[in-house]
């Protein structure tokens, strides 16, 4: 049984409960009063509109629209500007709930595969935790080459003037390709993160079993 079918089975017809137990800050969802201030305060929703802005996602969760919510590209449009958090009259930590739903959809393998910010988010975390510190050059290259070598060269060419400007200003170093900055105790960083994942997974699984 896949991870997705296991949770779908356990929380059948109660998607709100699933979000409350499995998503970071998910227990706040029921507090939303549908005023829409979050959607009106969101820079990326203001510009080009999310498929489902935050307050709509909250209502969809309560209406049990599991598939539509978890496969949506909406949450991935969050820029982490925290404007929704400071303006929400009910004090919902909306930014964290958006990240939480996105993380959960990604964990279940339901998030849209081609969503560029989903890709970049995973790339960033792997880059940062590999050595304990971000390697900016490898991070940029990883993004350019996500759709293959040819597209990578094209993307690199399109960004050439930006990159050259950074190199000239001493703010992008080609030396980062050969090792670069890192923590001394990488082993310790990896071990503690492994443990943290184990504990977190254990707690979530216990809720499914319980």
């Amino acid at each position, binding site marked *: 049984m896949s991870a997705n079918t296991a949770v779908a089975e356990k929380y059948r017809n109660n998607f709100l409960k699933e979000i409350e137990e499995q998503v*970071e800050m998910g227990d706040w969802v029921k507090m939303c009063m549908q005023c829409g201030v979050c959607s009106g305060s969101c*820079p*990326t929703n203001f510009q*080009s509109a999310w498929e489902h802005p935050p307050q709509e996602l909250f209502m969809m969760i309560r209406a049990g629209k599991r598939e539509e919510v978890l496969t949506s590209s909406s949450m991935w*449009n969050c*820029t*982490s*500007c*925290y*404007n929704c*958090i*400071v*303006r929400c009259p009910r004090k919902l*930590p909306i*930014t964290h709930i958006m*990240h939480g739903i*996105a*993380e959960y959809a990604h964990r279940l393998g339901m*998030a849209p595969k081609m969503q*560029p*910010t989903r*890709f*970049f*988010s*995973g790339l*960033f*975390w*792997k880059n*940062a*935790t590999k050595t*304990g*510190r*971000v390697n*900016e050059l490898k991070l940029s290259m990883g*993004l350019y080459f996500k759709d293959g070598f040819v597209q990578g060269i094209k993307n690199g060419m399109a960004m050439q*003037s*930006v990159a050259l*400007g*950074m190199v*000239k*200003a*001493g*703010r*992008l*170093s080609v030396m*980062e390709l050969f090792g670069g*900055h890192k923590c*001394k*105790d990488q082993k*310790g*960083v990896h*071990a*503690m*993160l492994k*443990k*943290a*994942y184990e*504990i*977190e997974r254990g*707690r979530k699984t216990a809720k499914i079993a319980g």
Partner: protein
Amino acid sequence: MAKHEYAFYPGCSSQKGASASNYLTSVESMCKTLDVKLTEIPDWNCCGASIGYAEAGELPRHVLNARNFALSEQHLPGQEIVATCAACWLGARETRERLTHSDTLMADTREALKEAGLTINEMPGIRHMVEVLIEDLGFEEMAKHVVRPLEGVKIAGYVGCQTNRPFGVAGESFENPVYLDKLVEMVGAESIPEYEQKVTCCGGALAFSEPERAQAQIKDIVESAYDHGAEMIVTPCPLCQANVEIYQGQVNKRYGTKFDIPVMYYSQLMVVAYGGSAKDAALNGQVIKARRLEEIAAKPVKR
């Protein structure tokens, strides 16, 4: 002994050859003048930033920040942690808040930290450099060191998101914080308190993953600065600085604009006003050169 001492968390972007290395250079010069001693937390790690969320989960993210707390406690006991990066400061403060409010999260964090041979006994204070400047030193003290006022320069104070929300600087409003305008006035330049894009998001990590969205926001931020007659923009955040500066060429291509406005750190303005050289202020780190500041930095100081 220095007047003020802190455990310093420079963050990934401040490292040598990284995107905010000019920020660090100018902060070091600024702190020398102000007699602030920053001691780097040994072997600090990345805060995870907000964009790591797809893989980070809750506990791993907090454990990353907690490792820095533990190292700080071990090597620099009793000192508050100061970050210059908005994301580092936000990430660390968020972890501090969550661990303080949840015994389970705290216990789990301690268990994970054990794997790295570390522990936390006390929660450290987490400060942003601008908090140190405003709260621990104060405008009056900072103004005393101005020997080369940036007279006649009009500067838009762009605060951005993560030093402003969700925590922000005490006493400031989320919608219209004024500390950056006060700082601009303090260095002898002209501020633009009515600059309406001062808390607009620069697009954050979406500048990489979905450039067209971020660049629409960057366009608004820069355009408004021009509309108010600004000669340069100043910011306290490394990602705001980079996004608003380095993509102006791409914005110009996309929108047919002719943007070419320097984007500075507050610390760079202060170093020049404090009599430092262009090198002390890391003006060579600008992609869009700040000619006006370079000229001022070449002038003799008024004593």
